[in-house]
């Protein structure tokens, strides 16, 4: 293993020259990234640039056609589903369209992971569910069905479901997509709170610049399957790469925002 590969293997997540192709179409052409423990990395880029594909690879929903992925020092790209399942117990994911189990109540959705993988009593689980729902501002919604909730509420429940099992790694797939600015801001604040409270390593895939600059410690921009820029929000803002400049300035709200924490 090269020195670089050893270095990557020591990070919380490291992605080394990962490629992905669907037939002749190359979605990822050799992406390398490293994320430290407790860090929030935002992957930004236009639609179809391969960022969601990359995120799905980090939790074993897609398999790369080349390169290697390390999570907590273990190479995971050749994991079997059984090995992934062991690792996934310490991971959580917030889906773009929430992906709540629509045949279950909000409470059962949040309790699902705890019921499946812990020996906690029903009382303990219900108490965790109530506390988690309180954290996301949905106390008392435990008995509601997902169909009775608004888009923003569903996203919050999706976040609650992901954090109920106190994961070490959290993945967000377009968490603010399709939400109005006020509700999107609620989600952004929840992500910030989660980052501060749980110190969880997070990867945020988004094309919402406001969200990326508000929540992330570092930002990587992906374009046509390659990382074209990487750095702190301030460094990305100063980046001279034409595509990055165009993308950020077109997507940025007037005045912009930088995470100053």
């Amino acid at each position, binding site marked *: 293993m090269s020195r670089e590969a050893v270095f990557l293997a020591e990070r919380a997540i490291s992605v080394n020259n990962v490629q992905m192709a669907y037939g002749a179409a190359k979605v990822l052409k050799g992406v390398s990234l490293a994320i430290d423990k407790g860090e929030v990395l935002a992957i930004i880029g236009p639609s179809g640039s391969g960022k969601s594909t990359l995120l*799905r690879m980090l*939790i*074993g*929903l897609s398999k790369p056609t080349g390169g290697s992925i390390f999570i907590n020092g273990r190479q995971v790209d050749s994991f079997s*589903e059984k090995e*992934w*399942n*062991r690792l*996934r*117990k310490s*991971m*959580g*994911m917030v*889906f*773009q*369209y929430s*992906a*709540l*189990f*629509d*045949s279950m109540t909000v409470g059962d959705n949040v309790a*699902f*992971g705890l019921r*499946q*993988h812990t020996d906690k009593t029903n009382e303990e689980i219900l108490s965790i569910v109530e506390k988690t729902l309180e954290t996301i501002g949905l106390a008392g919604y435990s008995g509601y069905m997902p169909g009775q909730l608004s888009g923003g509420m569903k996203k919050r429940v999706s976040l609650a*479901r992901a954090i109920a099992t106190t994961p070490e790694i959290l993945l967000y797939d377009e968490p603010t997509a399709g939400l109005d600015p006020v509700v999107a801001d609620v989600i952004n604040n929840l992500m910030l709170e989660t980052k501060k409270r749980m110190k969880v390593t997070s990867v945020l895939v988004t094309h919402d610049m406001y969200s990326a600059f508000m929540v992330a410690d570092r930002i990587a921009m992906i374009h046509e399957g390659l990382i074209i820029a990487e750095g702190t929000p301030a460094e990305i803002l100063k980046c001279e790469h034409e595509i990055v400049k165009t993308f950020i300035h077109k997507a940025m709200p007037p005045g912009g925002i930088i995470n100053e924490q």
Partner: protein
Amino acid sequence: MGKIAARVGRWVMNKSAGTGSVAILFWQALVSFPDVSIRETIKQMTKLGVDSLPIVVVTTTAAGMVFAVQTAQEFAKLGASDSVGAIVTIAMGRELVPILSGVVVAGRVGAAITAEIGSMKVTEQIDALRVMAVSPAVYLVAPRILACVLMLPVLGIFANVVGSWGGYFVAHAYAGVTSYSYLNSIKVFCVPFDIVGGLIKCMFFGCIVATVGCHKGLNAVSGAEGVGIATTGSVVLSIIMIFITNYFLSVLLYV
């Protein structure tokens, strides 16, 4: 000529791959039976089995009555009206009940399974299950297969009873067959395996409906249209497989 051969080859390859993936899914569910949730299985038994009872009862009663209409008068002409009960019961028990129950359940339950799991697939709920380290084969497929395998024979028992009764009423009305003659012919000519063999077939058909239903749902693509296509495909494939399997089971069990 080469193009046609290539097209045929591709079709055969696709169908073989499809059959292989159904078999793999069934195997994954089979090995996960020890981990299956009893609560979820009972829920599915109610949903897929008990709720199918009315439609199975109606169709098999009608089938028993129609079969008696066609046989009773003809048998009466031949002076063999004493055997109508046995004929109806054997036909119902060996073939009509398992086939009709299988087809009706494929239409009702198979379609429902595919639509439900297909909707879960296109709304990323299946991915959510996997992300939460829960195997869809254990959580979704195994309980449905178990429920169908256990409940279809139960439906078959009800279907045999009502089908035979339907046959009796019609045989009595059209050919004057008495209850004694009807029941006596069943007692003389029928053996328990006429019913048991049919119930064994029901178990196989339940397995086909659930496995195909789950497989089609898990492989649904492209939103609502994809779910619709998967649901239609599930019913069609289940019915085809039921008829083909029925031939081999009939040979195996009754020849």
